[in-house]
């Protein structure tokens, strides 16, 4: 890690001493250079390269920010610290010529760095703020400073275990579970824990807290790859929930430059449009925005599979959507007693 950052420094340093305006080469992240790779079953960057050139008046500021961010990352790695994206943004404050206008800009430069160095930001110890959680029979061994070698079982804490830097960087020791059940919401996660869904389905439960953070996608990928556990994803029945599932399965365009974050064999088990009909779920009408999004998804190359096209059509036809909590209509245990068995059995 340190090497790649130092290498970047050397490159720029040499350009300057050669009286060249420094520049770097990287894969283009423009939309026309992001393509779906059916073999990898995820988005990948195409072959087009761009230069970020300090001679270009519109590039010099982001170029400078990139160099500073690389330095900041090197500091983190050297001192075994972690940082949130927001802390990176704030750390630039006060450096008058680097200061970001907003966090979006800062996050974007960090992604540039990932592309330029071909590494995930987690490798540079930079994490997002979102908190997802995990629960189930999985024993892990910590690697964070002060906890090296300590083990814990993820059923130890009945409220579930937060996925922070410590879980992300831990080794997985053993599990008796035979599947992974991913839900998008904390409330449903608590419901599943309370209803002992991990026992009933012999599953590791994960909640993503909305769109899944990359660290959590990485954990899902590891559980699927290392332990051969099938992964089932259970989201709201709306375009946003559907896409949460798809990003776990096939990744996002934003992370086209990274590998190891997708789980192409994971299955989205609901809430389907057909569930709305079959279970007579309470619904909300689709908004104009939902509509637009559903139509976009229909044309997205990740959604070519039959199930996806069928369900997208059902939502568009029904003009309705449903949340996970919609099953509460039939009582709090219905989802564990009836719905999930039916779905996981199929």
């Amino acid at each position: 890690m340190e090497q790649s950052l130092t290498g970047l420094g050397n490159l720029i340093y040499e350009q300057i001493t050669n009286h060249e305006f420094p520049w770097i080469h990287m894969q283009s992240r423009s939309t026309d250079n992001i393509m779906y790779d059916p073999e990898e079953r995820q988005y990948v960057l195409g072959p087009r390269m761009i230069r970020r050139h300090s001679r270009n008046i519109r590039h010099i500021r982001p170029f400078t920010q990139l160099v500073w961010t690389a330095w900041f990352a090197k500091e983190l790695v050297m001192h075994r610290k972690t940082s949130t994206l927001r802390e990176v943004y704030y750390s630039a404050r006060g450096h008058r010529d680097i200061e970001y206008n907003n966090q979006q800009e800062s996050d974007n430069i960090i992604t540039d760095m990932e592309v330029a160095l071909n590494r995930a930001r987690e490798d540079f110890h930079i994490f997002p703020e979102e908190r997802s959680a995990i629960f189930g029979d999985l024993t892990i061994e910590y690697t964070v400073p002060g906890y090296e070698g300590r083990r814990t079982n993820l059923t130890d804490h009945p409220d579930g275990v937060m996925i922070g830097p410590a879980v992300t960087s831990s080794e997985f020791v053993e599990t008796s579970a035979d599947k992974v059940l991913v839900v998008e919401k904390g409330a449903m996660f608590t419901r599943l824990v309370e209803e002992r869904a991990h026992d009933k389905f012999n599953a590791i439960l994960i909640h993503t807290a909305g769109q899944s953070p990359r660290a959590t996608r990485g954990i899902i990928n590891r559980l699927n790859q290392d332990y051969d556990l099938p992964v089932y994803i259970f989201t709201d029945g709306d375009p946003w929930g559907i896409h949460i599932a798809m990003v776990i399965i096939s990744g996002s365009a934003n992370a086209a430059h990274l590998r190891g974050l997708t789980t192409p064999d994971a299955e989205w088990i609901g809430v389907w449009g057909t569930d709305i009909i079959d279970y007579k779920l309470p619904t909300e009408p689709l908004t104009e925005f939902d509509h637009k999004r559903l139509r976009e998804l229909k044309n997205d190359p990740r959604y070519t599979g039959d199930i996806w096209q069928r369900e997208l059509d059902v939502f568009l036809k029904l003009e309705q959507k449903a949340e996970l909590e919609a099953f509460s209509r039939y009582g709090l245990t219905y989802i564990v007693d009836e719905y999930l068995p039916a779905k996981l059995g199929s």
Partner: protein
Amino acid sequence: MSQTEYQSISPADFFYRNREIAGFSNPSRATYTAVRELVENSMDACEAQRVPPEVYLRITEVDDHRDTETKIYKLRIEDNGTGVPSEHIPQTFCQVFYGSKYILKQARGTFGLGGTMAVLYGQITTHKPVQVISSTGGEIHEFTMMIDIQNNRASILKHIIRQNPSGWRGTALELQMEGDYSRIMYRLIEYLKQTAMVNPYADLTYVDPRGRLYKFERGTEKLPPLPQSVKPHPHGVDVETFRRLIAATKTRNMKGFMMEHFQGVGPTTAEKFLDLADVSTKANPKTLSPEDIVKAVRATREYTGFKRPDASCLSPIGEELLETGIKKELNLTEEDYIKVVTRKPSTYLGFPFVVEAAVATGRTVRKTHGAGMTIYRFANRIPLLFDESSGVVWKAANKNINWKTYNVESDTSLVIAVHICSTKIPYKSVGKEYMADQPEVEKEVTNAIREAARGVRRYFNRRFRIAREHRRLNIFGKFLPVIAEFSSKLAEQEIPDIEPLLAVVSTDIPEVEKKLKEVPEIVEDTSK
């Protein structure tokens, strides 16, 4: 069953009964209209005389113990114009539909009503006579008169003839009228200010009822050329005019008739036109049937070969004078944009007209006029202040032009001034406050504004480019040291020397542009 009575009334009686259609609808508006009509007559008289106008206007409050907003005022106006020959004085000021304005050349008033209407209004509100003193250079004639409204003629109360040893030439008029000054004060001053703007060769002096003196001094002695009377242009002439010309002509055949009585019609044009009209070139005009006349008239609108109308009957302000007037009035600096356009003459319904337009923008305009568009409208050098949004200029500026293409947003400060001069301004009402949207006029106004605005986009772009070059020279000096610092920290090296790089960019702009070409083209990063 009632008996229906029939009767005729005089023109003076008609306008007495319908004075609001001439702009005398209420005391404040009447005050404004009276001043306007009298000032315009004076300006016309001076220009006819080829002297730079000196117009003096005074309004005084006549002692009036009533405590109302409506009061009796005395209006006095003096000019150094041609003067009115004594035999014409009574009719000119006391007869509706009499004057010097019923011929085909540009003059400010075109209805020939204004002066007489002011006198009429004064008379019916105060029952006081009007006093006119005038000389064409010889004796000075002083008339005291009233209008015999029922018979539309002057009734002369007094006529004094005086010697004129100093050779004074000009006209002074004094009348009393009921008015309301306080409500119209600001409009009156705005009117005089805008008049000064498009008549930069005139001196205007105004003493208001509160004794305040307003002086609008001339900026040049140069007068625009005097408009000439001309023959009518054939395009759009109407049947009545055609018939009158036939009644009066001495020519024996239609070819000669066309060449003799219309502008710019030579033998070839006459032949081609008559061929289109299906009228024989040899036909005697006097024997033309009504159908032939109608055919000929309708053909004038379809025949496209006529020359543009003769502009010698028109007197546009001219690009130079108009620019001077506007710059002076708006205090524009070199930093601001102004462009004035005088269009070629055009014609509507047989009347020639010329449109002039100015567009101004920049920092000064923003300071004085705020955000958005300000429109100044002029017709034959008269400012139009009322009913802006009903007129053709407003329509052209707001509806016909897509300002986006000029980089003008709704909050851009923009001044548009449009001057239309014509032998006949297409006013929509006798009150002369806005112009009807005759298609030809609308098109010319739109094109004039477009032409004057053409440089606006370039002006904004240039200002933007200058600002950008300033930033550009700055930016390398700002970022290169930071790149050097942190890349050296990353590489764990000493800080490298960036002076050679800064030397490349610290030369002046043209050189930079040249050097830039030597650097290999950079592929645009469209993901940003």
